[in-house]
């Protein structure tokens, strides 16, 4: 209850009058049995509750009113404010003094109790906030809650907190800066015209500011740690890429250099067969180098987004057949299914298919057939390349598409770029590539592309 509100004052005055009236009534009832002069002290029971609830400002008038009522009703001559006996003057003075002293004591006790309660509320709130903030909750999520609970402590209906340097306050709010260690942590806004407890503002806000400053700092450190972790990871990736590239570039170079060195060395006695072998090594390793450089270029073009497709209408089964032909693998690949129409860059999609099929051939036993099946719905055409290899672990299904990823301990299978490039070109053409597998049952790599309706002029 706010003792200073208009209603509070009216209620206080009414209660005071009532209390004086009640005590007066009681004295009337008891008067026949007790010397009346000793009953004046009963008015303390009227003054005391008023002092406790409303304080000294109301208790003093009540004391005076009690004294006047006692004089009027009970001290001879009754119904006058004059006194017959000078002893009675003394008694009244003692009553008045007693009432004033008791009122003051009661009011003081009341103020202390109220202050203690307020501080208890403040420290309980601080302790709770500290626990929650330090437990690692995201500060931003908690601000609303902290604001409304701070409002309770400050004795205002609501309060909101903004972190960071002070902005222009909303027109209907008064700002209070939250400062800790010489810098502004944020601002707390209370409704304009509300009357926050000034002592609580001075006491509570610095503690709240310090707490928020710690939480803000913690949030910042957490973010920085996350960023550092991300950087470290990308560094690891770069190192892995560099190592893979340097290995894949160096191996063919070593083969070529060794073969050339042997052919040019006059002290060696090379047989014709050895000479042929050395030339073949140079041939194969040069091919491998040039393929690798091509793959790296494709990959960097894809990553830079500069692999712009030039779409044309194709029958998907034709692209599959051409891809098989570029691999020279007609004998080992069986193609079945439909012939949906797609609007794609023929070279790029052929590349996707060739990489998927080449991968399937690589992981199949050398006498096994790779099956390619084409299916189509109204929206999508799907090419599935099914091999009879060892299959993929669940954890590998996505990783196989990472550049430089090699399956198992396989070291001979090129640079691990084929599937990454396939996925990149598929995406550039509005499609997607994914893997399906259960270990021991072979792997399936699928390419999905949007189908187009057969244009009217092509319909027979």
């Amino acid at each position, binding site marked *: 209850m706010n003792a200073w509100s208009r209603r509070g004052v009216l209620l206080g005055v009414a209660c005071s009058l009532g209390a004086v009236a009640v005590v007066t009534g009681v004295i009337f009832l008891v008067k026949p049995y007790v010397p009346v002069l000793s009953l004046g002290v009963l008015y303390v029971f009227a003054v005391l509750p008023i002092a406790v609830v409303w304080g000294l400002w109301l208790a003093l008038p009540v004391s005076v009113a009690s004294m006047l009522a006692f004089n009027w009703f009970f001290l001879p001559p009754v119904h006058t404010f004059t006194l017959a006996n000078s002893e009675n003057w003394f008694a009244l003075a003692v009553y008045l003094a007693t009432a004033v002293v008791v009122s003051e004591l009661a009011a003081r006790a009341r103020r202390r109790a109220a202050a203690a309660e307020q501080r208890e509320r403040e420290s309980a709130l601080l302790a709770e906030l500290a626990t929650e903030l330090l437990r690692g909750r995201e500060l931003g999520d908690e601000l609303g809650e902290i604001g409304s609970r701070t409002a309770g402590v400050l004795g205002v209906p609501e309060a909101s907190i903004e972190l960071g340097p002070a902005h222009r306050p909303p027109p209907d709010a008064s700002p209070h800066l939250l400062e800790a260690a010489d810098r502004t942590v944020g601002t707390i806004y209370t409704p304009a015209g509300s009357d926050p407890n000034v002592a609580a503002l001075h006491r509570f806000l610095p503690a709240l500011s310090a707490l928020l400053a710690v939480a803000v700092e913690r949030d910042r450190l957490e973010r920085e740690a996350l960023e550092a972790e991300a950087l470290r990871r990308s560094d690891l990736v770069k190192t892995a890429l560099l190592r893979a590239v340097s290995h894949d570039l160096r191996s063919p170079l*070593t083969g070529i250099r060794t073969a050339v060195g042997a052919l040019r060395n006059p002290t060696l006695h090379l047989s014709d067969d050895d000479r042929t072998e050395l030339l073949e*090594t140079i041939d194969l390793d040069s091919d491998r180098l040039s393929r690798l450089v091509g793959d790296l270029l494709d990959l960097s073009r894809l990553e830079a987004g500069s692999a712009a497709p030039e779409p044309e209408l194709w029958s998907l089964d034709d692209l599959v057949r051409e891809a098989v032909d570029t691999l020279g693998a007609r004998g080992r690949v069986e193609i079945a299914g439909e012939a949906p129409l797609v609007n794609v860059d023929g070279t790029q999609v052929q590349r996707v298919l060739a990489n998927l099929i080449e991968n399937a051939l690589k992981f199949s036993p050398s006498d096994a057939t790779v099956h390619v099946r084409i299916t189509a719905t109204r929206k999508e055409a799907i090419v599935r390349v099914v091999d009879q290899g060892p299959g993929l672990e669940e954890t590998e299904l996505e990783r196989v598409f990472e550049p430089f990823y090699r399956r198992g301990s*396989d070291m001979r299978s090129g640079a691990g770029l084929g599937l990454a490039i396939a996925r990149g070109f598929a995406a550039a053409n509005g499609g997607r590539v994914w893997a399906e597998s259960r270990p021991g049952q072979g792997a399936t790599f699928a390419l999905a592309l949007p189908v187009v309706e057969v244009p009217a002029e092509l319909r027979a």
Partner: protein
Amino acid sequence: MSGQRVLVVDDEPQILRALRATLRGAGYTVESAATAEEALIAAAARPPEAVILDLVLPDGNGTDVTRELRSWSDAPVIVLSAVGEEKAKIAALDAGADDYVTKPFSVDELLARLRAVLRRRGQAADPVIEVGDLRIDVTERVVTVGGERVKLSPHEFDLLRVLAQNRGKLLTHRALLRDVWGPAYEVEAHYLHVYVSHLRRKIEPDPSSPRYLLTEPGAGYRLVDPGDDV
């Protein structure tokens, strides 16, 4: 040098093929293997006189193969290492490999190293070792350069003795520290550099451009005869 058996181990088929033809052309009998397991089986079936070993193999690494090989064979091992594999290279040398070449290597360099390790193999443990103008009497602990006696501290003498007894062979920092100062000093490489510098001032004609005691950057030291081809 005809018909000495060399085992070549590399998982890259083209490198293996080029090395086979090259070594055959140089008069060696060549065995080849593509994995660590194949290498050990081949070495056990027909013990080679020397092994050329890639550091990275599909089923293991060259260091493990070297260690395994060393437990029952003293055939010298030349490691094929690559930039970025320095640590693995040192580990292989510590495990008992004799030398290394870095990919891509020149054929001449590889053949010279191979000749050097094969030549060392025949050397007996002589009480007197001669390297160029250097003469080291191991039993009397006397060293002369061009006939003139040189005064060495005990550690300097031991360092020179270990290097001379492994003449031509690359000795890692760790191996030298272990043999000269004892196992407790294996990681205190700065002792070594200081003693090498002292030793050079006493035995080299021009200590600032050494001809006997050569530094292999990041790996170790070797003592060579300036007249040899390595």
